[in-house]
């Protein structure tokens, strides 16, 4: 947790002793300090020819394949958490948004909105995490922007990343192709990220060995597409969890989905934490898991390919599309009963007992 959050409100700190270690409003002023911030703390770490040129835009060579383009903004409290940080999230999240459309990520932009007072130490750790995650995903940060704003909530840093990718040959992600009989696969254990974040929030904190699953999944997805599996639809199950993705599929395609609770991969620690907080693991955020819909005959190959990748070790078929009316998502519970699965209404909050 950064010093910004642990410092009690109203506490007086000596500006002179602290300021040299922290980002100042002046670092966003466009002058010498801004140049230094960008050169010493960002470009020197994320080093590549595009960034080094310090142009207003990056010029990227392209092929005749379609461009896939996305953007996402990242806010998280605290900025650093077990298994990741806002930097890893901001790269993995945008890479995954490209990858689930069947694209190979090529380049990302990085927009930093820094609150004055953010310790440079924290910023440096996060930029280093961005570098490592981008390397892992084999994608370059080719352009960026930095702003410094007055101190507000004290969370310190917000990030926007946009990304472009090339559509992979053989990829045909199209919800309209989903039909009854198709299978639902998840690439691993659910709810790890959301529960990890909750476990370190003020007022909710609890002991757990859980870690965020934040990870770029493009390599695994690339292998999946190359294997010839007919992936009809794919989505990373972030906010809203698997329940949110399934509800979207059901509503937009007008199709029913039957999910088998006993097949849902979940760590015992995650199940325990969710039970304790009164939350449904299906509605909790993941940052390194995809849900995909494939033709039934492809399920074995798809699971094999995923399980051979570290991010997909616990891949499992959890359900199937059906032609039941009205179109709803239903869970066959481990007890043998049935219930409806809906997307969560908003922020998931721990309940009373």
């Amino acid at each position, binding site marked *: 947790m950064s010093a910004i959050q642990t410092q009690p409100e109203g506490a007086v700190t000596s500006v002179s002793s602290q300021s040299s270690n922290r980002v100042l409003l002046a670092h966003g002023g466009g002058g010498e300090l801004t140049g230094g911030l960008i050169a010493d703390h960002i470009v020197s770490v994320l080093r590549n020819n595009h960034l080094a040129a310090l142009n207003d835009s990056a010029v990227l060579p392209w092929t005749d394949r379609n461009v896939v383009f996305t953007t996402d903004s990242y806010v998280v409290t605290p900025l650093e958490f077990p298994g990741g940080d806002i930097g890893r999230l901001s790269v993995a999240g945008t890479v995954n948004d490209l990858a689930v459309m069947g694209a190979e990520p090529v380049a990302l932009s990085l927009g930093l909105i820094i609150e004055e007072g953010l310790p440079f130490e924290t910023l440096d750790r996060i930029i280093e995490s961005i570098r490592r995650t981008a390397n892992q995903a084999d994608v370059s940060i080719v352009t960026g922007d930095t702003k410094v704003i007055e101190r507000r909530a004290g969370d310190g840093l917000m990030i926007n990343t946009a990304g472009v990718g090339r559509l992979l040959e053989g990829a045909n992600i199209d919800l309209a192709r989903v039909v009854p009989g198709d299978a639902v696969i998840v690439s691993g254990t659910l709810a790890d990220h959301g529960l990890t974040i909750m476990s370190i929030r*003020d007022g909710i904190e609890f002991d757990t060995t859980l870690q965020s699953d934040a990870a770029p999944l493009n390599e695994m997805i690339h292998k999946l597409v190359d294997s010839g599996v007919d992936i009809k639809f794919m989505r990373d199950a972030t906010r809203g969890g698997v329940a949110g993705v399934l509800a979207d599929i059901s509503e937009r395609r007008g199709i029913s989905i039957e999910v088998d609770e006993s097949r849902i991969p979940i760590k015992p620690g995650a199940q325990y934490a969710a039970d304790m*907080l009164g939350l449904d693991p299906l509605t909790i955020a993941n940052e390194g898991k995809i849900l995909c819909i494939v033709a039934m005959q492809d399920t074995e190959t798809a699971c094999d390919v995923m399980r051979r990748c570290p991010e997909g070790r616990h891949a499992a078929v959890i359900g199937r599309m059906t032609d039941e009316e*009205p179109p709803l998502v239903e869970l066959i519970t*481990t*007890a*043998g*009963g049935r*219930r409806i699965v809906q997307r969560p209404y908003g922020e998931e909050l721990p*309940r*009373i007992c």
Partner: protein
Amino acid sequence: MNADLMTWRDELALRCERIGREVRIMEVCGTHTVAAFRSGIRSMLPDNLRLISGPGCPVCVTAQRHIDAAIELATLPNVIVATYGDMVRVPGQSGSLERQRANGADVRVVTSASRALSLARKYPDSEIVFLGVGFETTAPATAVTIMDAHRSGIRNFSVLISHKLVIPAMSALLSHGDVPIDGFLCPGHVSVIIGSEAYGPIASRFGKPCVVGGFEPEQMLKALVFLVRQIERGEARIENVYPAVVSGSGNAAAMEILQEVFVSADTPWRSLGVIPSSGFELAPAYRDFDALRRFNIAVGDDVDNPACRCGDVILGRIEPPACELFDNGCTPLSPIGPCMVSSEGTCAAWHKYHKRATATGALS
């Protein structure tokens, strides 16, 4: 499905068929309500067994006037309201804590009273107000925390007391006379504190079987089977099928703590009115921790939407779809009545887990 589950399910079906009329069992506890929906137990019950969700969802029974007081407290300068998560969205007369937060109020979600006290230690220049809601399950934790604050001389911590007691509510419900209930599935968590013998008056005075059950699917089905066995034989006894966790006499230490910190009080329940001796106020030695006194907040009245039938839902008179507001103006996104707010609320649980049945008209 495991063998235990199948055995209980089959016996339940057999006995309900033999009884040959609608069997109405009230599950008193909100956790049972959610567990029954979430585990799919409801879909496994015989057609003539009706599971009625009683006044056991702490959020649903918190009087609107207490929500209004909480909102008023949240608008005071330098006050941080610390609350269990499900209270944040409950509508008062003017908005909710969630809306006040958007207007700049400082509202924090905590998972326990002691976490709220930690906030008081962490922010010594702010006033922390904890919303003390819930039944005998959460009341001892509130009491212990108040004792801790008292002992530690923490002056910037107070509690809006809105705790409720289960037995007076069950008695009040049965005294209404027009609520046909054949038996009670009694709450496992509350019973840990009060003990299974506390249901004595419900069984002896009102002649209703009471069975204390756990929250796993097989534990719930087992408790229902024990209830239906009694109903079939015309008996009215207390049975405890959760003995690993619940004792006959309850948790004496917790009861002592409650008696140390609280005195019983006539308490308003949402949609049910004031029920005699059904809640708490702080004992004289601890009155300094009463948020209403500290900030001089007057508690008003409840002004419910006349079309809202949460009271009838809580009393088991109707099921949620029978309310004209259900899914028609009152939804989990914009709740009108409290039963639509908490995930434990009957209407919210119904809305979330039950849609196909209502959509196809399978429920009346």
